[in-house]
């Protein structure tokens, strides 16, 4: 039991040995280590971007890895990296690029009176809850609502150009927001693309309520064009590693 749970029980004079406690199924995380979403990796945790490795919540394909699984993946990735760096030559640092990055990072602090990160976060949360299968919708979604989410995300993404930060803590939140909107955009594209319900309660497509192995026993991957910002979504074949009937344990 978490400490705040103990405090909550005491503060509300609830004795859990005598009084039943109301529970609810919440927060089936679609992204992160609780689910399969993340960067496409090989066995050694190498991503599709040369020199970039992923372990833990950002690495895809391994659901329910939790903290211990993230650590294990960290070890796997580290072993691959150690081998990889043996053959890496150090390149030149491009000062102009560094200057550009500093400008990009500090831009929200150089503005004032723009939209604050916390405000955008609340708007993003409310919008995704409503149109992309959040808790008030019992994690159910359909094409019509996802398309609204797509449009609203576009507007939110444009508004991040106006984001301002009063201090370094808010600067961190500002970049958090920019990234969160990007993740939400990718998520909505994936939810729209998969026209079936593979994980009820995580991804319940009301317009395609059945699982459809014939068309969708596969991974869904995406790639974003850095110039046009267009997200390209595509299928990647599923390969069965353990032989036998995958629906019988």
């Amino acid at each position, binding site marked *: 039991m*978490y400490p*705040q749970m*103990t*405090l*909550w029980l*005491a*503060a*509300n*004079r609830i004795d859990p040995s005598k009084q039943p406690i109301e529970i609810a199924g919440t927060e089936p995380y679609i992204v992160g280590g609780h689910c399969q979403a993340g960067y496409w990796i090989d066995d050694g945790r190498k991503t599709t971007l040369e020199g970039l490795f992923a372990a833990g919540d950002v690495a895809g394909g391994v659901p329910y890895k939790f903290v211990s699984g993230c650590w294990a993946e960290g070890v796997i990735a580290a072993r691959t990296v150690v081998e990889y760096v043996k053959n890496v030559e150090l390149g030149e640092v491009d000062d102009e690029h560094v200057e550009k990055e500093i400008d990009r990072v500090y831009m929200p602090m150089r503005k004032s009176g723009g939209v604050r990160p916390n405000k955008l976060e609340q708007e993003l949360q409310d919008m995704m809850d409503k149109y992309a299968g959040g808790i008030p919708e019992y994690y159910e979604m359909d094409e019509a609502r996802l398309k609204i989410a797509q449009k609203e995300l576009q507007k939110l993404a444009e508004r991040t150009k106006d984001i301002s930060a009063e201090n370094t803590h808010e600067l961190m939140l500002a970049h958090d927001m920019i990234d969160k909107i990007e993740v939400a955009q990718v998520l909505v594209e994936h939810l729209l693309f998969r026209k079936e319900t593979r994980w009820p309660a995580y991804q319940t497509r009301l317009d395609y309520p059945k699982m459809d192995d014939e068309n969708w026993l596969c991974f869904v991957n995406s790639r974003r064009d850095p110039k046009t910002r267009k997200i390209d979504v595509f299928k990647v074949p599923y390969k069965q590693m353990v032989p036998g009937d995958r629906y019988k344990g």
Partner: protein
Amino acid sequence: MGVIIDKEKCNSCGLCVKLCPGDLEALDPKTRKAFIWDNDDCWNCLVCVKHCPTQAITLKLPNAITKHDATLMPKMTDDEIDWTLIDPDGKVDTFKIPRKTVR
């Protein structure tokens, strides 16, 4: 969720600033006392509460889910955490939980 920092007790050591995984705590540049940027972003992980050397930080539940005052304080020893829970009627409960570490 969130925490309350007792400015009188804070000795400005900066440990909570270093430990908070959410980058939520900082020292006021003028008073050198710890403060929290935004309690709404606190996950009640309790790292700061457990490690503050003067026990200046206490756990605070949001007003929306509790109406009464109760406190829960951990005290760290090398191999266990000694918790003291005081309910709204002043009844004190203590329990010891072994510490799991990989040191």
